[in-house]
């Protein structure tokens, strides 16, 4: 919602209107994340999550297949993955790893970046299907 509130509204309405099962996965900033800029900026945190490729906004509507269209739409713009590490270090759930387990923190941060890049590639490939 914080990244693109129109997309959130659209996704919710499309899901409800679909004459079959629908699932909405809603990114929800939480006090458990330890957001350094505080919960008063929870919507801004969600925005930055998408901008750095931590999260993506997309819709998948099987009805479009009947119209010969790709059911998958990647709504979020090309993220800047180089910002991902800064983003996660802005939350104590990630930042505290460095304090508690400095030895393995960088390895896991690198893996987090790799996982995010893989996820983006997957969504891009889905979006590229005809």
């Amino acid at each position, binding site marked *: *919602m914080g990244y693109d509130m129109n997309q959130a509204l659209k996704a*919710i309405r499309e899901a409800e209107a679909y004459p079959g099962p629908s699932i909405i996965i809603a990114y*929800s900033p939480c*006090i458990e994340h330890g957001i350094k800029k505080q919960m008063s900026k929870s919507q801004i945190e969600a925005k930055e999550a998408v901008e750095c490729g931590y999260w993506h906004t*997309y819709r998948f509507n099987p009805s479009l297949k009947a119209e010969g269209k790709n059911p998958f739409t990647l709504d979020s713009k090309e993220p800047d993955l180089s910002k991902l590490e800064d983003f996660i270090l802005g939350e104590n759930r990630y930042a505290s790893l460095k304090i508690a387990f400095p030895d393995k*923190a960088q390895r896991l941060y690198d893996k987090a970046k790799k996982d995010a890049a893989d996820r983006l590639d997957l969504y891009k490939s889905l979006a590229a299907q005809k």
Partner: protein
Amino acid sequence: MKQKKVMMDGNTAASYISYAFTEVAGIFPITPSSVMAELVDEWAANGKKNIFGQPVEVIEMQSEGGAAGTVHGSLQAGALTTTYTASQGLLLMIPNMYKIAGEMLPGVFHVSARTLSAHALSIFGDHSDVIGCRNTGFAFLASGSPQEVMDLGAVAHLSAIKARMPFLHFFDGFRTSHEMNTIEALDYDELAKLIDYDQLDAFRKNALNPDHPVTRGTTVNPDIFFQSREACNKAVNAIPEIVEHYMGEIKKLTGREYNLFDLYGAKDAERLIIMMGSGAETAKEVVDYLVEKGEKVALLDVRLYRPFSKKHFLAAVPKTVKKIATLDRLKEPNGLGEPLYQDVCTVYKQEGIDMEIVGGRYGLSSKDTTPEQILAVFENLKEATPKDNFTIGIVDDVYNTSLELPAPINTTPAGEKGCKIWGMGSDGTVGANKNTVKIINETTDLNAQAYFVYDSKKSGGLTQSHLRFGTAPIRSPYLVNKADFVACHTQAYVYKYDMVKDLKENGIFLLNCNWSDEELDANLPDSMKKALADKNARLYIIDAVAIAKKIGLGNRINTILQASFFKLTDIIPIDDAVKEMKEAIYKTYFIKKGQKIVDLNNESIDYGITELHEVKIPEAWKNITVKPVEENVPDFIKDVVNVMNRQEGDNIPVSTIMKYKLEDGTWYAGTTKYEKRGAAADVPEWNIDNCIQCNICSLVCPHAAIRPVLLDEAEKAKAPADFTTKKAIGPGLDKYEYRIQVSPYDCTGCGVCVNACPAKEKAIVMEPLASQLDQADNWTFAVEDVEIKKDAVNHNTVKNSQFAKPYFEFSGACAGCGETPYIKLVTQLFGDHMYIGNASGCSSAYGGSTPATPYCDDKCGRGPAWAMSLFEDNAEYVLGFKLGYEAVRRRSKAYVEDLIAKGVCKAEGEAYLAAYNDSAKSDETSKALVAALKASNDASEAAKYIIDNADYLARKSFWAFGGDGWAYDIGYGGLDHVIATGEDVNILVLDTEVYSNTGGQSSKSTNTAAVAKFSAGGKETKKKDLGYMAMSYG
């Protein structure tokens, strides 16, 4: 040998003792047991070693069912395996418990016993969960205090190994699991000497292993199943003596004596209470009180509940006993008596002894069990015909089961002090109190007890700290209700709660407020003034808020008030207290926050002492006549909701529950609007000139406390003078006046709206609550007297969606919550025709924790129909809503077709069928059909059915709400299945990437590198792509 004295709660004691004996732990979070597994995970991540020189292998599973399966497998593979759970979690383990016991495996389950969901969920404690699995074949050991958890926890593990049978060790959820007390920790090296290594070796040798293969878990026919079940008797029969042996070993180590059945009180007792768990500790106090008066009473504290050893029972009960009362901490609604009662009756029946036995229930859902309640049970036994099937702790004025309470008694040992402190969630009060008991534990020979009570609000809720200090070990597992010292850390509470009630005569009352003596006289409610005067209280005030602000500590008032506490209670010399507090501050803050914060906190300690001011209570306060407060609200709010919100819900009798038909779990929609919590420090103020009318503030508000209002001319004419408006902009809106209205009492002050406001110059700014309170009347006008403008509502745009009524308002969610804006938006789109099934979690806690219901209805009485079943079954539950609703509706559809064929209301019927699945039109065509049928006076069964079931005509919207713990983990199987059915069910996953409600445990939604509980060392694996998995059906 002298053991180490520590402050520990029951959960920590269970973690500590179980860690010693555990090789593998299969876990899943559930309140109030989660802490046990969290500590084990954290210690393992940091390399702590068990008795065998290894860290525990900890594995979090997708559910308790999964955890139990892993525990079972690990035991079969020959590792000593443990789990920790409670309540619904334990229920999910039952199938594997039968297996583990049937296969004679030495697993240990530590259970912080918690209420099972019935008409409602409760996170609090009673024995309904553990008693519900008494026939699995596990041995059951009960502990009643953190010390007993430590001692009997060891007995459970040692006995399991020696008996090669599984044990369930339980203690009361919250009352014991969360009570901090001064206890002695057992030494791992000493414990290691007590293990029966031969039996451990036999267990390993008997494990499943391809080097000596066997087949287990076979399918057996009628020929030998029965005989095999009888063949296990030998192992079961050996358990009591083994447990007795290890109780003796613990006594050798500690001097503390335990027996399978512990008799406490007169050896020649005539009246006996039999019970188990923490309530027994309360009963011991009452027994002491009565024995001192020469009464022949005693308590039998049941330690080993299964196997129930008749031999040991009879040996423990004095021959002089004439009457017995059993106390069960659960309700079995349709039995002849609760389980412990039936066990005791069976003993005497089998022995042919004619004993008078009555059974009672107590303490359901952590209902506080006081000495007076126990005294009532002993008094009942004095009667010629004691009441049977009785209750204590409630007023049952319908079935008259409840025993009448005697006058208050004092069972507090000499030299013990009780303190009760009222604070607000996140003001630091609870943390400071934990620190206080720690200081007292570490610097004196005194014993301490601390127990904390929270309401269901996620932020800004009420906290009550109950502290006791004394020279003798402290039992009293009940709330402090005769306090030497009461403190109120939040000024507004003087209007909300009766805090003087628990204060002793001549006790000390500390009030944190910004009033002078004169202002105090003018502002304190009459009832409080009179109560303070009548108790001859010593009243102190301090303005900690001003001090904190002045020295630059913001809203952190806790250290100031902690210093005041030490000064006034005089438990330890004030100079020592100051020294210890300063040391604690250094430890807490120096590394994380630096010297400056340390200095500020140190300064605040000094102020907490010097700024205390004693108020001389005026004589006149004694003579005040207290007038009853008038409440202009519906009866249900007055009789139930407001009573509960005053923390007086214990007084609500059974008749009131029945009057409002609450017994089936029903609660009424939209009660949060009566709370008017005023929990925010600062709330938004609207700047009319800067506003660009985008409505984004309304969209992102987690609590629906800021809304756009459109007024027509007539409404504008009626509006209060300061209800300023500007001309509405946007297509078709220019006939209206526009305003953004804030509800100052309902806002939590998170500031999300301010940060989201896109106006060049912010159109909302945060201002102190006090300056905005006059907006309350404007709010009332905006929601009561201004109609929703249906022509302005348009679901296609964010702006116009916000002119719709939110059917979800003022929930107890955290300030700034990221979940609730989605929920609110969904209700604005579909709220008047939606079903919601909610998985357990944050969204159920703020969605329906009595007395607060944020889901509300509109002026037509329509709104979301909301219900929660369990954690694991929510998608299935909502599918059931859909199928059930459609089954009734489908019959209507058939009748409509019949009527069309007969030519009755043909046009309306056809219109109805045409819009059957069209949510935009279905409501209207349904209404038109019913109206036409009524007008037609058609007497057919079809017409009657349709009219009688008019609520089942229109298309409804079916929603499953829940968090990632539900959707990715425990409920995934069901969610996947529901998607696979192709049924039109909507699922909203509020993804916080962690189990938020149970305190932040890792889920399969948790991303790589995130630190969460159960992933103390950072999550190694990738986040599950739930969306991608769901797409595979598309």
